[in-house]
């Protein structure tokens, strides 16, 4: 039983393959995160702006992204949207764009809730002192919003990492792809168990870090 699910010798044989997959996952996670954070800012800015159609479009963008299953959106991006736009790209770029768009919508919502958490009166007070809107953002909103934003931001990063295995559906070489390849190679489930353990470890780490950050920001907010 253990020899099929937790076989150290087998694990040692496939270690490089798994490592390659883990590196692929990490690379994708970082690029997707960077795209998602930026798209979140763009969508959030559109929601703040005075132009009504743009606000409406941002709200629908967020709802559509929330509605699409990750797997479906990934497949549609790779096989449909990008070919329609006459862009020919590899699975890595397609996955990064798809995860970036999908999670960007969630990040926009997180930015917005932090913005709403800053008291309106403070912004009005700063405006009546004659501060420009950029200075208001810099001096009043961002220092306070940053504390509110950290815990949900971290939570969302964990969700993003948890979505990574879906990239195997469009043939990107990440941890799950490598684990399945290794499983076929050695006719043993250890690689798959190892992949699951690696994900659990990474996400527990993120969860722990998130907990610490939440504690930190709660202390700072109370002070």
């Amino acid at each position, binding site marked *: *039983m253990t020899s*099929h*699910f937790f076989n150290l010798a087998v694990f040692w044989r496939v270690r490089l393959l798994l490592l390659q997959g883990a590196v692929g996952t990490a690379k994708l996670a970082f690029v997707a995160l960077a795209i998602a954070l930026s798209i979140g800012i763009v969508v959030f800015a559109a929601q703040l702006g005075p132009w009504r159609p743009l606000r409406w479009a941002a709200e629908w963008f967020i*709802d*559509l992204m*929330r*509605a*699409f*299953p*990750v*797997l*479906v959106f990934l*497949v*549609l991006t790779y*096989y*449909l949207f990008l*070919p329609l736009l006459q862009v020919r790209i590899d699975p890595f770029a397609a996955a990064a764009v798809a995860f970036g768009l999908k999670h960007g919508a969630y990040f926009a919502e997180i930015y917005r809730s932090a913005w709403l958490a800053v008291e309106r009166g403070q912004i009005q007070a700063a405006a009546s002192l004659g501060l420009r809107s950029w200075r208001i953002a810099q001096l009043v909103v961002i220092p306070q919003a940053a504390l509110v934003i950290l815990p949900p931001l971290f939570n969302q990063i964990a969700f993003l990492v*948890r*979505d*990574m*295995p*879906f990239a*195997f*559906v469009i043939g990107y070489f990440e941890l*799950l792809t490598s684990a*399945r390849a290794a*499983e076929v190679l050695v006719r*043993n*489930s250890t690689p*798959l*168990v190892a*992949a*699951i353990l690696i*994900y*659990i470890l990474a*996400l*527990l780490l993120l*969860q722990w870090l998130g907990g610490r950050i939440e504690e930190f920001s709660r202390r700072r907010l109370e002070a």
Partner: protein
Amino acid sequence: MFVTLQLATLTFFLAIVPGLLIALARRLGPRWLALPLGAMVNLVRCVPTLLTVVFIYLALPFAGITLSAFASVLLGTTFMQVVFFSEAFRGALASVGKGQFDAAYACGLRTTTVLRRVILPQAALVAAPAFASSLVLLVQNTSIASAVAVNDMIGTALNIQTNYGDPAPLVAAGIGYLVLIVPLVRLTRRWERRMAMAL
């Protein structure tokens, strides 16, 4: 479409009662039950749903348990959904003050009565947005079926795309998911707004 709906409905009914029980056990149960349950929920939440399904489908046969693709998906999504539901319910239960329990007990009500008449009506209100968004997740997760060769909505469309190069079914599948899920998302949005106003 039919397989997708079937999976979603089955998962919903199989997962909701254990999810509620776990949440209740973590709130009301003795420590030796609540602590390990909490640790387990935290651990399971860390596993990507896709990996759970793939593990059940590809690794369990080595242990002599061979399930059909459909059963693997159902088992995997149900297992994860129990945890997601239990988290939604736990958050809602936590929002009902401890004094409510004490007061109800002091009135001489039995635990089941306390739950039914005092706690759950209040918790249900708070649980609504989280519950709706875990429903969204449930329907979305059925798409995992395509990854292990069940012909659900997206799986069928993908097959046609790769075999015939015809993207029309993909478009249809995309629209199909939107038709299923967009109403849920709009509902979540409205409930979230209402909660924000009530607080």
